Structure formats: C-alpha cells, structure tokens
C-alpha cells in the first residue's frame, strides 16, 4: 500500500470541443480551447512551479511563480491565467524565468519560518517542494527584516489550526471557501505587506461563519492550515479510497493512514459525487470509530433490568438463535423480524433481509427508510415506475431553476448544497418551499427568487396550487405530455387542478402562502428553462407524504422537466445508504429491485437461489411491529445499525413495543437508546472496518474499503451470517464481493455490477445489458413504467390540528454538525457547534409566553413532553416552532405522534400540535429516562482471572 498521489494540473479542465495545438518546451500538445498554459504543460508531463494555483480553483495569478516565456510575446506571463493559442511556443524553464522564480521564492522564504524538520507539513509541503523546484539555495535578505514570524496560531477550531506565521497569503483558502464551499467566511485583510488571512470579522475560526468543511485546509500549500490529527500523528504513509458513511451524498474520501490509524480523511478529487469537496462530518467527524464508548464484546442479559454480561461471540450468537427459535416455536414463524440499516453496506442490508426471508421464513423486514423516504418509493413508483431520483448530482450544473422543497441542503447535504450554490451564483434561479427560512433563502451571493413559507402540513395544497397556475395559464409542455404520458390520466389531472378551489387565492388562507408569490414561483418553474426539483423529508414525513411526492412528479411531467440534464425530481436521501437499503429489498413487501413479494416469477428467482420457499405475503412495517408486539404477536427483533427508540416517532409507543418483546437484539457500535430495551448486544463495525458498497442519492454505487480490521472481530455481514447459520440456514460467503455477485445475478437493475467494475469506477443503476454504462439520468426516452402517470392529489388536512391546548405547530429537522440521532457525531468534537437540541420560536410567540432567548421551556404535545432551551428567532414563522432530534437527553420524538403517511406509514414528524411554556429545567420524564438509561447500561464486571 502506498499514498495515492493525485495530479494537480494547476487550473481547471475545460470542456470546449474545439481543440488547440501548441508547443511546450518543444513538445506538441493538443488541449481544449480555453485551457491554461499551466494545465496544458502538466498534461504534457511538464510541471511548472506554482503556489497560488490548484486545479480545484479558478486561476488567480498572484504568486508569480508560474511565469513562462512565449515566443513572439513580450514579458513573462503567468501560465495559470494565460490561455493556450494555436501554434503558441512556450518555454517553461528558460534562464530568465528560472531567475525570476528564484527571486520571488527568496522573498517568500525571507518571511517564512525555517523549521521544516519540525513542521507538520514536512514531507507534504508545496512551498518546500516549490523551493526545491526553483533551486533556491540562499535567501539574500535574511530574516531579520519586517516579518510575520511571530504571528499567532488560531487553534480555536477543534479539527485544524491556523498558524499565521506560515501563511504566504496565496488566497487559496479564501478562494476555496468562496468557490468550492460558497460560505465566504474568509478574506484577505489589510493591504500589501500587512495583508493577512482573516476569518469572519477578524475573529477566531470557531466563532466565525466558517462551517469547517475543510476546503481551506485542503487548499493550503503550507502548514498554515493543518489538521490537528496530522500535527499529532505525523504525515500518513498510505491511503485507501473509500466512501463516507454520513449523508446520502456519498462523498469519496482517501483514508490517509499511518499503520492502522486514520491520520485524516481527505476528499478524493476523482469522487464522482463530491469532486474533491467535503463537509465537517465526513472530513473531520470520524473519531467516533475509536471512541471509548464503543462496545467491542458481545453481551447478553435475561431481563432488561439486569446488567449486561460480556460473553463470547459463539455464546451470544447461540443465544440469539435459541431465543428466536423458541419464540417461533411458541408464537409462529411470523413472530420475529429484522430492521436493516441504512448506515450499513448494500451487502450487509441484503443479508439481513435474506435472513428474514430465507432463515426466519417471513417478510418481517423493514428499514429506517420507513420513517424517511418510503413515500418516495410509493410516489415515484406510481408515477414514473421506480423509486429513485432521476438525475446525477452533476445535472445541477445545467439547471436554470432550482426548486428546494422541504429540504435544508446546507445542513443535511452540505457538499451537494455547495454545488447548488455555485450554480445559483452563476445565475440559476431558486425557489424555496419551506416553513422555515432556511439558509439557502438568503446566503452570501445567493438569494431565493421566491420563498413560499407554507404552513406545516399543507404541501399537497401548495403543489396542487402550483399545478393550477401552470394548467390555467397554459404553461404545460404539451409535446412532452402527448409523447411521454398517459393522456387520459393527464386530462383528469388537468381538470382537477384547474378547479377554482385550487387557485393560489382560494388556498392562501389554508397554506399561508401569498397568492402572488405562489403564482410567480409557478411561472418561473414552468418557463424559466431547465427546472430541477430537490426535496427532502419536509415532503415525505407527513400524513400525505406519498401524495406530495406524486404531486411533485406531476409538476415535472406537466412542464417536461424530466429525462435530460438539468431537470428532474430528486429526493435528497438522509442517510448514507438509504437508497441502497431500499434497493436491497429491505421493505416488507418488496424483494430486491422493488419487486413485490406476491409475484410468483420474482419469488421463484430467489427460491431457486436461496433454496427455500418464500412467503408471498407482505410483512410488518416498523410501526406495525410495535403494535404487533404490544398485541403479543411479535416478540423478537434483530436491529442492525439503527436507533429506533430515538429516531422513531412517539417514543412512549416505541418503548412500550420494545418492552413487550422477549428478545431484542441490537447490533451497533454503541449502547444506543434502543439497547436500553435489548437482551442481546452484538458489537458492530464502522465503515472503516469492512468492505462493501453504499448507494447514494443519485443511485451511484460506491466502493467502501476496509482500512483497518474490525475492532470487535467481525464485520457486520459476518455477524448476520453467524446468526443465520445458527438458525439453521447456511450462509457461507467469504467476501462481500460474493454477496454482490448474488445481488447482480438476481436483480435486473444490478445485473452489470461487479466489484471488478466498481473498483475501476462507480456506476449508477440501472446497470445492465440495456444500460451497460449505468444510468446517470433516468427516464430519458421513456419512463421506467412506459408512459408517465399523472395522479390526482386531493388535499386532505392532517388530523393533527392546533387548538387551545396545543396552539403551535412543531416541525423537526437537522443541524449541519450533527447526523441523525447523533450516535456518531455526538462522540466527536462536532458537539462544540451543537451541544444540545434547541427550540426555535418566533419572537411574537416567545413574547406572548414570557420566553427569552436561552430560557428553558417545556414542549408538550398530546404524545408527551420534554424540556429544552429556546432560541428566539424570525427564522420560523409565527405559530411554528422547530427543533432537532440529535440528543437523547431531549428525545424530541417523545413529542411527535403516531400519525403517518396514508400509503406507507411514514410518520408525520413534521407536524405536531404543541404548547410551549417557560420551565426551570429538564422534565420529570427526562429525569426518569436518564435513570432508566443509566440503569440499562450497566455492565457486569468481568470475573478476575
């Protein structure tokens, strides 16, 4: 194993089709028009010294290190900012430019510490390398003149230092923050010799607007911006490309290692989802993998009130199998089930659903997508024919109008948000449909053309009203509809949405959206060029979540915004492998590839492959499992890599369901909240400890590569195999590639997927004979179902209504620095940005209740109550409050109710009627839960040897 070296071409690649041939140091080279001399030279294998240039940023031309001579032209232009021209003859190493470069380098080094041997960048310093390339041998000016050698170090950020004494003010960090991340948190303060890099208003990085994405650290050519982990551990000695285990963007990273220790995670430039960018979670928040809270030994206990007892793997697995068999013998084969993990690999997820179907003999398998994007599966399946986003992420670069509905990409999908913001800075228009004024509504150099601040729970009314404007103002793409869609269904739909009761004016009092804003947004989407819709859980987590997804699909079909670059309908998936867990047959009604279990032909494929008869009846969905447990017909559950107690709605109901089960098996990294009710704990493995694949929100199948041995001795797929074998159903895979081979054999959309292929490059499904190169864009010539199907979307108000007892509406979401239930990110330094869940409340609502910023408040609904501190802000509208669900001490889901989507039972997290009142600290329930939790986590001391 060695370090993966990525070539830095100095400037960005050009996509022009017209080619230009020039000569560099006597070597002919042909490149696209617009290419810089620097890049053309590098492509010819000739590296021109540089400091301020790097190929992830626009050319800048400030360091004067890349000077060249061009025959017939005066002077020595910078090669990074000078484009090639036909017949140009360039000299990169003439005596003149060598002398000039050496002189410039002398000036740099005269104001740079000469501590290379003890510098954290030693061995990986572009300044050091460049000094070597220009042949610097002495510095005539010495170091006794005016300098910055005593400039202080800002160590406020938990992940990197800013050592100003080493800064050469090349502006790469400033430009990375602007061009790549789009936050504009950094600037060059002062002029001339007094120039220096400043964060925010010349404040510490930690308190500035910096979002710690790491782009500046990556761009820095010296040790000025350096990871604290490198300062502590030294430079890495080998690296392995893998895929981030946080959100659904699926960023590729180089895990840079020293032995079996991760030194740092560096975004991989060739990663097709992230193109070398990262966020604070993937880049820095991997310390949970070695956190002391990790449980590395299997444990069992007879009752959940007993302390845990550490046992061998054999004993734990044997206990699981024995209990599950006992329960099935007593209560029937349908009395046990599984929950697959959207944090685990495709191969692991496939095995868990196979365990349920082949070893347990039922379809009681579900996944966390139940509580996030199951309506996407139903809605896009019904309208387009399959459950997946239609575009690749690159498509956003061709979008003219971007519609963000019920999503907060800068927090939930930050790397994609940066690309979105870049496109918006280039001139694309933005429509935000969200009850909150999310950051995208107004952020540096980006301002939404329309923000529709709808009342929570009125998505369908708003979508249908948008359609009303498009139909009644004759903004339909008639050719697209005629050629690509079912015309009868379209006619029914068009007549429905055209009814006056769906006009923006008629619905204004329902939705809270001013009619003129809604009309403007509809016209912009329909007529503004390529219209691309991106949506999140603000769409799906409603009693009409599936209906809203179909309403979105209707809009895209009606305006012809499907089937080409720059358009489409794109669900932003929450967890890293939500798409994959759905693809792999995690749902209780579908085998892998979204094929219903009642299909004889489909079942026969798996019956042949697995050698057992399969049930043709759907199994229990997660909320139904709890109901069935309370009723006594569901008594055993294997949960891999999910914390359903903290993440699922109506905590009281979930805990009651779990408490009613006789054998709960939690397979996880930590003793999570669900484990409070578990009888067996099986230690899990992090993404760093196993091979496999994740599928991101653009259907891209990315390789996950093991960079260290599993700390608990087994990768998760091995643990599932052990359970299956102990249950009497043999599974004997020796590597996840064999599992993927089985997936490809049995699932048509994965038929062309192999590890050999994925090892060369990622691919987007469908990948098969019909789509041998994968499918960056779906539904190009026809929909997956043939003709697109319009669905009538009658608005049915939720039954969760405000009233005198609960007059406010609570909606929930996520923070940038935390991930899902926080099990991983709470065990990293990310807690400095989000140490607790807070309740956002409008100043008017706060004033009415005597609540001041920072006060403790009691948040109550008909389901339960909790206490947390308030943030008084106009980010939420009057009548609406908002919080996150990252911290178990708050347990926001003790508030949410059991209302759910009509089609899928996806919970209605986004609408809960609540009351907020001043409080003097945590509630009695929180105190009781804390006691229960501490008691449930006791581990019996191992006997002395």
């Amino acid at each position, binding site marked *: 194993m060695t370090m993966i070296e990525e070539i830095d071409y100095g400037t960005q690649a050009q996509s022009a089709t017209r080619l230009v041939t020039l000569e560099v140091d006597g070597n002919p080279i042909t490149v696209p028009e617009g290419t810089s001399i620097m890049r053309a030279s590098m492509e010819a294998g000739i590296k021109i010294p540089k400091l301020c240039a790097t190929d992830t940023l626009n050319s800048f031309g400030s360091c004067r290190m890349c000077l060249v001579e061009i025959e017939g032209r005066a002077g020595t232009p910078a090669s990074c900012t000078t484009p090639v021209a036909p017949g140009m003859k360039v000299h990169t190493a003439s005596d003149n430019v060598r002398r000039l470069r050496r002189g410039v380098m002398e000036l740099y080094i005269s104001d740079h510490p000469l501590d290379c041997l003890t510098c954290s960048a030693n061995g990986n310093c572009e300044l050091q390398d460049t000094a070597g390339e220009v042949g610097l041998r002495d510095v005539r000016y010495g170091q006794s003149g005016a300098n910055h050698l005593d400039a202080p170090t800002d160590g406020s950020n938990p992940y990197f230092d800013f050592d100003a004494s080493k800064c050469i003010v090349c502006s790469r960090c400033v430009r990375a923050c602007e061009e790549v991340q789009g936050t504009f948190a950094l600037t060059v303060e002062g002029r001339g010799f007094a120039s220096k890099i400043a964060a925010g208003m010349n404040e510490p990085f930690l308190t500035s607007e910096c979002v710690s994405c790491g782009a500046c650290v990556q761009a820095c050519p010296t040790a000025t911006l350096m990871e604290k982990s490198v300062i502590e551990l030294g430079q890495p000695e080998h690296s392995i490309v893998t895929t981030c285990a946080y959100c659904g963007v699926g960023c590729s990273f180089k895990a840079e290692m020293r032995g079996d220790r991760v030194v740092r995670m560096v975004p991989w430039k060739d990663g097709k989802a992230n193109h070398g960018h990262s966020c604070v979670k993937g880049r820095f928040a991997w310390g949970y993998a070695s956190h002391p809270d990790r449980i590395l030994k299997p444990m069992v206990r007879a009752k959940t009130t007993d302390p845990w007892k550490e046992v061998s793997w054999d004993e734990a697995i044997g206990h699981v199998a024995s209990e599950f068999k006992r329960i099935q013998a007593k209560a029937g084969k349908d009395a046990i089930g599984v929950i697959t993990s959207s944090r685990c690999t495709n191969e692991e997820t496939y095995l868990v659903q196979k365990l349920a179907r082949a070893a347990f003999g039922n379809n009681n398998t579900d996944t966390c997508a139940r509580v996030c994007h199951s309506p996407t599966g139903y809605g896009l399946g019904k309208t387009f024919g399959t459950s997946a986003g239609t575009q690749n992420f690159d498509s956003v670069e061709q979008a003219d109008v971007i519609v963000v509905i019920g999503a907060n990409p800068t927090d939930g999908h930050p790397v994609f948000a940066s690309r979105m913001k870049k496109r918006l800075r280039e001139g694309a228009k933005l429509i935000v449909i969200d009850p909150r004024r999310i950051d995208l509504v107004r952020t540096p150099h980006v301002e939404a053309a329309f923000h529709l601040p709808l009342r929570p729970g009125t998505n369908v009314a708003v979508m249908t009203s948008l359609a009303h404007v498009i139909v009644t103002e004759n903004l339909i793409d008639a050719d697209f509809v005629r050629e690509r869609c079912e015309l009868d269904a379209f006619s*029914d739909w068009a007549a*429905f949405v055209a009814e006056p009761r769906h006009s923006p004016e008629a619905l204004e009092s329902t939705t809270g959206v001013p009619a003129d804003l809604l009309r403007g947004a509809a016209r912009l989407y329909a007529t503004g060029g390529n219209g691309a819709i991106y949506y999140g859980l603000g769409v799906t987590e409603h009693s009409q979540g599936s209906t809203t997804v179909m309403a979105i699909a209707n809009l895209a079909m009606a305006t012809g915004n499907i089937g080409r670059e720059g358009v489409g309908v794109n669900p932003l998936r929450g967890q890293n492998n939500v798409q994959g867990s759905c693809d792999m047959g995690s749902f209780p009604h579908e085998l892998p590839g979204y094929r219903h279990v009642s299909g004889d032909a489909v079942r026969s494929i798996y019956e042949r492959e697995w050698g057992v008869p399969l049930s043709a009846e759907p199994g229990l*969905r997660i909320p139904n499992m709890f*109901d*069935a447990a309370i009723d006594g017909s569901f008594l055993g559950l294997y949960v891999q890599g999910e914390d359903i107690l903290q993440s699922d709605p109506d905590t009281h109901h979930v805990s009651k369901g779990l408490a009613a089960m006789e054998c709960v098996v939690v397979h996880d990294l930590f003793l999570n909240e669900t484990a409070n009710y578990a009888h067996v704990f099986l230690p899990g493995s992090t993404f760093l400890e196993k091979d496999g694949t994740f599928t991101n929100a653009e259907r891209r199948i990315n390789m996950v590569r093991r960079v260290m041995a599993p700390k608990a001795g087994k990768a998760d797929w091995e643990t599932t195999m052990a359970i299956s074998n102990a249950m009497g159903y043999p599974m004997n895979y020796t590597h996840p590639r064999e599992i993927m081979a089985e997936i490809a054999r049995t699932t048509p959309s994965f038929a062309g997927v192999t590890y050999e292929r994925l090892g060369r490059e990622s691919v987007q499904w469908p990948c098969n004979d019909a789509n041998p190169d994968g499918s960056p864009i779906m539904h190009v010539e026809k929909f997956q179902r043939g003709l697109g199907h319009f669905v*009538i979307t009658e608005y*049915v108000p939720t039954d969760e209504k405000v009233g005198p007892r609960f007059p406010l509406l609570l909606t929930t979401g996520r923070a940038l620095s935390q991930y899902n239930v926080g099990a991983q990110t709470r065990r990293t330094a990310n807690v400095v940005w989000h140490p607790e869940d807070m309740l956002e409340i409008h100043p008017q609502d706060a004033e009415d209740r005597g609540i001041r910023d920072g006060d403790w408040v009691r948040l109550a609904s008909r389901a339960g109550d909790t206490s947390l501190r308030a943030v008084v802000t106009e980010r939420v509208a009057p009548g609406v409050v908002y919080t996150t669900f990252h911290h178990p001490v708050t347990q926001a889901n003790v508030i949410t109710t059991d209302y759910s989507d*009509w089609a*899928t*039972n996806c919970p209605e997290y986004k609408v809960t009627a609540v009351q907020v009142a001043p409080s003097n600290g945590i509630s009695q329930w929180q105190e009781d839960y804390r006691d229960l939790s501490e008691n449930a986590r006791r581990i019996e001391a191992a006997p002395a040897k």
Partner: protein
Amino acid sequence: MSPDKLAYMANQIGRFFVSQKSEDGVASIAEHLTKFWDPRMRRDFLAHLDEIALDPIVRQAAERLRKP
C-alpha cells in the same frame, strides 16, 4: 392490533383512492391493503368490521377482502 387504529389507516387510504377518477376505488383500496398490510393486520381489521367506523368505499373494499 387496535381495530380503531386499523380503521383510521384504512380510511386514510380510502380518501386517496376515492379521488382517483381513472381507478376503481374499491379495487384499489382492496389491492393496497393486500399489498402493504401484513396478514395479521388484515385479519384483525376484517374481524372487527362490524365495530369500526369506515367510509363507505372502504367498507366496500373490506367486504370484498372478506369474501373467500
């Protein structure tokens, strides 16, 4: 499972399909319950048909499912 909760869920499903002009609402509701509800849910639902409040179209779908 609670018959009232199952009735509530079934009525939710009914309210979607009743508005679909191009579909046979009764058949679609019955199909949805068959495709997405675990057999024990259907069994409990059908066992309490006489006790629960159902929208007319949902009751028709349920009666269709109850037939052997």
